[in-house]
C-alpha cells in the first residue's frame, strides 16, 4: 500500500517539480549571487579580518552590480535577438558578423555626419539598426527561399559580415569619442550608466514583442509545431524572415552598446558573441528545439554567465581556471533547469 501513497502524492510533487524547474534559472542566479560573497568572507575570516557576510562584500555591492550590468549589456542585446530565433527552433550564428558590420558602419556614418550626437550624426543610430536588420533579412530570405538550414546560412553570413567589416575598415580601428555618445557609459543615474537603462528599455520592447504582438506569438507557434502552424494558415515563411530581421536589429543594438562601452568600432567588435550568447539563452531555460522560453529567461541566463565571470575575478580565481569553472557551472545550470521527465532524447 505504500506505493499507493506515493502514487497519490505524485500530482502535488510533480506540480512542485514543475514550479522548481520553471524557476530553476532564477534559483541558480540567486545562489550564485549568494555564493561568491562566501568565498570573500572565508578569505577575510582566514586572515582574521572583521567581515560581515554580504555587507562587506566587494562582489555584493552596487558598484560591482553596475560593473556586471555594463559587461552584460551588449551580450544581452545579442542574446535577446537570438532568443527569438531559438524559440522558432532555428538558430542564428551570424551575430558576430552582424555586430561587426553594424558597429563599423555606425562609426563611419557617425563620424562622416559630424561626429557628435548633437548633430545629424544621430542618424547613424537608425542606420546601424537598419544595417543589422538587412543582414538578418538576407539571412532569413536565403534560409526560407532556398530551404537552407538556418545553421548553415547564418554561419556563412557570419563570415560574410566579419569579412565585410574587414573590407570597410581595412583592419583599422575607428574611435568614437563623442562625449555625448560616450555618456552611455560615463553618465550614471542611480549608480548605473545610461546604457543599462537603454538595455532595460530594449528588453521591455523585446518582451512586449514576444508577449503582446502577433509576430511574437507566432514565433512560439512555429517553434511548437511548424507543420501545424502552416496548416492553420499561418504564413510561416514571413514569420521566419521577420524573425531573422528582428534578430539582426537586436544584434545591431548590441553593436551600439559594444561601441558605447569601449569607444572603438572594429572588425573584432563582434568577436566572442556567438557561443556566449547562445549559451546564455540555453542557461536561461530556453530550449534549443524551440517553443519554450523567452527573453526574460535570456536576461537571467545572461546575468548568470556574467555573474559567474565577474564573481570569479572578484574572488581572485586564477585566470587559467576561470574558463573551466565557467564550463562546469554552465553544464550545472542547464542540468538543473532541464525537465528530464519530458524529453526523450537530446542531440
Amino acid at each position, binding site marked *: 500500500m505504500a*506505493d*499507493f501513497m*506515493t*502514487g497519490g502524492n*505524485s500530482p502535488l510533487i510533480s506540480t512542485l517539480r514543475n514550479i522548481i524547474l520553471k524557476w530553476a534559472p532564477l534559483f541558480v542566479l540567486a545562489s550564485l549571487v549568494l555564493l561568491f560573497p562566501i568565498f570573500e568572507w572565508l578569505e577575510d575570516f582566514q586572515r582574521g579580518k572583521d567581515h560581515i557576510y554580504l555587507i562587506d562584500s566587494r562582489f555584493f555591492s552596487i558598484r560591482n552590480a553596475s560593473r556586471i550590468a555594463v559587461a552584460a549589456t551588449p551580450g544581452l542585446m545579442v542574446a535577446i535577438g537570438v532568443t527569438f530565433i531559438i524559440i522558432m527552433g532555428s538558430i542564428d550564428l551570424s551575430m558576430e558578423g552582424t555586430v561587426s558590420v553594424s558597429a563599423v558602419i555606425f562609426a563611419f556614418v557617425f563620424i562622416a555626419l559630424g561626429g557628435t550626437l548633437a548633430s545629424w550624426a544621430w542618424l547613424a543610430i537608425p542606420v546601424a539598426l537598419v544595417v543589422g536588420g538587412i543582414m538578418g533579412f538576407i539571412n532569413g530570405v536565403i534560409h526560407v527561399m532556398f530551404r537552407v538550414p538556418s545553421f548553415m546560412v547564418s554561419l556563412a553570413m557570419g563570415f560574410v559580415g566579419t569579412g565585410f567589416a574587414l573590407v570597410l575598415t581595412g583592419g583599422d580601428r575607428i574611435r568614437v569619442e563623442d562625449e555625448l555618445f560616450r555618456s552611455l557609459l560615463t553618465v550614471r543615474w542611480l549608480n548605473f550608466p545610461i546604457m543599462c537603462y537603454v538595455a532595460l528599455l530594449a528588453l521591455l520592447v523585446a518582451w512586449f514583442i514576444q508577449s*503582446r*504582438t*502577433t509576430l511574437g*506569438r507566432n514565433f*512560439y*507557434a512555429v*517553434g*511548437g*509545431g511548424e507543420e*501545424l*502552424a*502552416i*496548416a*492553420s*494558415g*499561418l*504564413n510561416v515563411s514571413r514569420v521566419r524572415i521577420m524573425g531573422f530581421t528582428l534578430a539582426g536589429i537586436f544584434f545591431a543594438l548590441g553593436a551600439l552598446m559594444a561601441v558605447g562601452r569601449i569607444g572603438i568600432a572594429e572588425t573584432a567588435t563582434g568577436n566572442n558573441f556567438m557561443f556566449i550568447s547562445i549559451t546564455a539563452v540555453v542557461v536561461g531555460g530556453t530550449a534549443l528545439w524551440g*517553443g*519554450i522560453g523567452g527573453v526574460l529567461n535570456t536576461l537571467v541566463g545572461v546575468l548568470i554567465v556574467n555573474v559567474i565571470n565577474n564573481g570569479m575575478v572578484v574572488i581572485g580565481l586564477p585566470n587559467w581556471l576561470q574558463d573551466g569553472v565557467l564550463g562546469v557551472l554552465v553544464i550545472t545550470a542547464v542540468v538543473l533547469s532541464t525537465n528530464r521527465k519530458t524529453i526523450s532524447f537530446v542531440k
Partner: protein
Amino acid sequence: MFELKAIDKHFPGVHALQDVDFHIHRGEIVGLVGENGAGKSTLMKIIYGAYQPDGGTIEIDSKSVRFQNPRQAMDNGIGMVFQEQSLIPNLTVMENIFLGYENQFVKFGIINWQAMSVAAKEQLAKVKLDIDPNTITMELSFGQRQLVELAKVLTLEERIEGHLVILLDEPTSVLAEEEVNLLFQIVRDLTKRASFIFISHRIDEVLELSDRIYVMKDGKIVDVVQHDDAEVNAIQHKMVGRDIDKEYYREQKQKPYNSSEVLVTFDNVSLDGVYRNISFDLHAGEVLTLVGTEGSGREGILRTLYGMEQCTSGSVKIKGEKVTHFSATAGVSRSIGYVPRERKVEGIVNGMNVYENMTLSQLQNFRYMGVMNVPKEKSLATTWIERLGIKTPSVYKDCGDLSGGNQQKIVLAKWRSGGSEIILLDHPTRGLDIGAKEDVYEMIREMSDNGIGILLVADTLEEAIGLSHTIMVLKDGEFQKGFDCKPGSKPSLYDLVHHMI
C-alpha cells in the same frame, strides 16, 4: 453547393485519384470510407487546399474555384478538423483557436488578450467545452483537444459569410464513447450552418452519423450509399472487394497453448501514475491481450516487460528469472521482441535499408570482431522477404519508402529472425490495409503455434476478441476482469466494454 468534378491527381508512380466526382448539399453530413491508400486523405487534402488537382474542377455554388493553399480554402468556408493532433502544444487554447487570425484582436500592433479570451470562450461554448481559454494546450486530454480543434474550425462561422464545409478526419479515434456521442450531437446541431464530411475507419459510426456515404477504393469512388440503404457488410465488401467472414481473425487456427510452460510472470507489479498491482502469467504459445481505453496502462505494461520503463514495485520474472535491470538492451537479450505502435518512429529506421533494419536488434549475430558480415545479413533478409511475402524491389530499398504493411512485416521479421520467444505487439495492425492486417493475423497464429508467447494491445476490440487466448481488461491502470477466449466461447464486445468504462 460544394462539388468536385472529375478530379484527377497523380504522384510519382501513383495515380492517387481517378475521375472523382463528389458533391455535398447544404446541411448534409457525408461519410467517406475506404481502406488505407484508397485515396481518402488525398481527396481531403484537395478539398482543403493542401494539394491542387491535376485535372477536374472544384465548384462552390456552381462557381469554379481554385485553392492554392489551406488559407484560401478557409476563406471560402472550408475547414479541416485534423486526425493527427493539430494543435500546437506550447500555445494556449485561445491562441490555437485564433492562430493565423489574430488580427481581429490587434490594435496598434498590440494583441488584446482580454478580447481574445472572451471570443475563445464563445467558440468553446459551441462545442460545450468549459475550460479556461488560457490553459496551455499540452495540459488538456486528447478528447478535449479534439473538441478544441472543432472549436477552432468553427471560428469560420463568424469569419465567413454563407455556408461552411467542415471535414472531420478520424475525429473519434481518441475519444471515449460519451465523448463520441457528444461530438455527434454537436455536429448534428451545427448542420444549420455547415455541411460535414466525416471520415472514420469505424464504419458503424459513419453509418450512424452520415446522410450519405461515399466508398472509395484504389483512388476511385466505387459506391455512394444513402443512410437508409447502408449496411456494414456491403460497404466493407465494396471497400475491400471481398467478404470479411468469420475466418478474418483466423479463429479456426487458434490452438490451445501450453499451460505448463510459463514465460513471463508479473506479480503485483506497479508503475507509479501508469498502472497498479498487475499480475498475470504469459505462457508459451499464448496470445494474451490487454484491453482498455487510451491511458488504461496497456502500453506501460508492455514497455515495462520490454525494459523501457522500470516498474516501481512488484516483481517481473522472465523465464523464471527475476528482472532486476530494466533496459531495452536487456529486454532484447532476454529474447523479447517489441513491435511498437509508432511504426515509423520506433519500429523501422527511416533511412536504413531492409537488411539493416532486420539485423538492427541482433548485430552481435552478424559481426565478427566488430565487422559486419553483410552477405549473411542479406541472405537472412532474402529468406524472410520470401517467407513473409514482403514486397520490396530489393534488400537495398530504404524502409522509409515501403508501405506500412511491409514495414510492419520487416519489424516482425527482425524479432522472429532473432529468435524472440516473447513478442510484444502494440497496435500491430494500426494504419494497415485489410490485406496487410490479415497477413499480420496469420503471422500471429503462426508465432503462437511455434510456442512464442504474445502480449498484444489490439487496434480494435474485435481484433482483441478474435485473436486472443486470454483477455485482461484494464481501467485507469487497474486490472478489472480476465476472460478466457476459447474458440466458440469468446466474450462479446459488450462484455468487454462493460468493464472498460
